[in-house]
């Protein structure tokens, strides 16, 4: 089967972001960017399906600025066969991204689409579900295990109380949770080979998708800072403080 994987370029997860002084957003100038960690897990799962002989071709897609090609090359180095960049400079809403992905799905006709469960910048956790709605496909969100069984997909999902397993008709949409797998590193020879793999660039206009949004960000602020705490010297002092000062026990 053909597998489509969507990836996103985001601020590296180790970076502590700073809010801009004019409250228009967070400062992304000269900040290290990487592939969203959940997207790495999505790529890894697709590559494992190919290694098992289940997937025949892996197409990786991203929507973003020209620099997002770096993340596509990373995915190609990890084992994806070819890449599609939908070039768009705007900060798109999840619905707009889902609509663009739907246009790519219509063109590529994959049997399985794998996305991360959420991007660590917007923390929305929406795109996969929205793509499932637009395509009419079944969805297996927060997946910690994926098994293809004939024309069905068995997905074990992480839910609040534990784990849930659902059987989905193919084609289907899966979003990855942290425990689905441990992503591999790209090796130097594979990074070199990835430079020769095909990368196609399209625009939202060419896909016939409007990216207008009904939500606008008015301001972005730093969260309220916690007042500085104190270090206690002993357990007895800690208990005394919790009982008499904080009054929480």
């Amino acid at each position, binding site marked *: 089967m053909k597998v489509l994987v969507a990836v996103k370029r985001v601020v590296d997860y180790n970076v502590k972001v700073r809010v801009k002084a004019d409250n228009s957003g967070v400062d992304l100038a000269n900040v290290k960017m990487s592939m969203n960690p959940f997207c790495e897990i999505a790529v890894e799962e697709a590559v494992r399906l190919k290694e098992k002989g289940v997937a025949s071709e892996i197409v990786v897609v991203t929507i973003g600025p020209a620099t997002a090609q770096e993340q596509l090359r990373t995915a190609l180095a990890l084992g994806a066969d070819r890449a599609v960049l939908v070039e768009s400079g705007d900060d798109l*809403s999840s619905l707009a991204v889902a609509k663009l992905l739907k246009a790519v799905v219509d063109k590529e006709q994959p049997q399985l689409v794998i996305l991360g469960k959420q991007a660590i910048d917007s923390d929305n956790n929406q795109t996969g*579900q929205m793509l499932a709605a637009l395509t009419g496909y079944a*969805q297996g969100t927060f997946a910690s295990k994926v098994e293809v069984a004939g024309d069905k997909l068995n997905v074990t999902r992480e839910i609040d109380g534990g784990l849930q397993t659902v059987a989905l008709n193919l084609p289907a949409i899966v979003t990855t949770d942290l425990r689905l797998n441990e992503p591999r590193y790209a090796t130097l020879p594979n990074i070199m080979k990835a430079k020769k793999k095909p990368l196609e660039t399209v625009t939202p206009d060419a896909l016939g998708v409007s990216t207008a949004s009904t939500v606008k960000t008015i301001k972005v602020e730093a969260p309220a800072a916690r007042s500085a705490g104190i270090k206690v010297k002993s357990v007895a002092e*800690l208990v005394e403080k919790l009982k008499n000062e904080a009054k929480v026990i």
Partner: protein
Amino acid sequence: MAILVIAEHSNAALAPATLNVVTAAQKIGGDIHVLVAGSNAAAAAEAAAKVAGVSKVLLADNAAYAHQLPENVAPLIAELGKNYSHVLAPATTNGKNFLPRVAALLDVDQISEIIAVESADTFKRPIYAGNAIATVQSSAAVKVITVRTTGFDAAAEGGSASVEAVSGPADAGKSAFVGEELAKSDRPELTAAKIVVSGGRGMGNGDNFKHLYALADKLGAAVGASRAAVDAGFVPNDMQVGQTGKIVAPQLYIAVGISGAIQHLAGMKDSKVIVAINKDEEAPIFQVADYGLVADLFEAVPELEKLV
């Protein structure tokens, strides 16, 4: 203007998360209707009718809605939602699963995990793992929103709403529930507990969590964990607190052997009082802790258990 709240429930009972969403709905203002979509869910609907501030409960009882599979419930919610100004669900794994599907069916953007209501169309939500708070305004005809339950108090009892049966599309035939494995615990539910005791990689192994369980039982607390502890197999994943796990805001959060990575802080830094016990005095957790104790946890935790 009326608001539709999608209930979180187990068919037999209403989940506490629903009560926090009702409070968020009250802050928006308007008539509040609660949809209970399930199978043999009359008991949950009765409970929803008793929540203060709720004027009507819609009960969609159909075998297809038993496990709230999004392929089946999203078309139902989208169809009902057209008649409302707002559709709200808790930001639980269940709400996060079906609500974006509803938003896309309605062709509107969704606003995820709001922590405050500024006005009927303006909301605050955390981004970048809680390191920034965005104020967003929606011009959508139907505002589709998930609510971070720790951002709002639970609504009280004392309502007497009517329960009205509604029907919607049958099984879409795209997905099926196979089974579930729920972790068993006698302790309070993590997201609702007043006190949470969490362990990290410093616990060393799963067996050592017994020290935390003993302390938690003495305090009537829930036990959580960092991702490192979950990934190392010390405890099951539903105990994970953080950006990708559960978001908690208890009165007291005790972090034991947890360094305090950005992703963990995202899940607990709104706790009223934070205590950190760590032998590394440079650990980032001490920057958010109200009370820090630099000590070996294997000595400090049993002593703490004795003294509380």
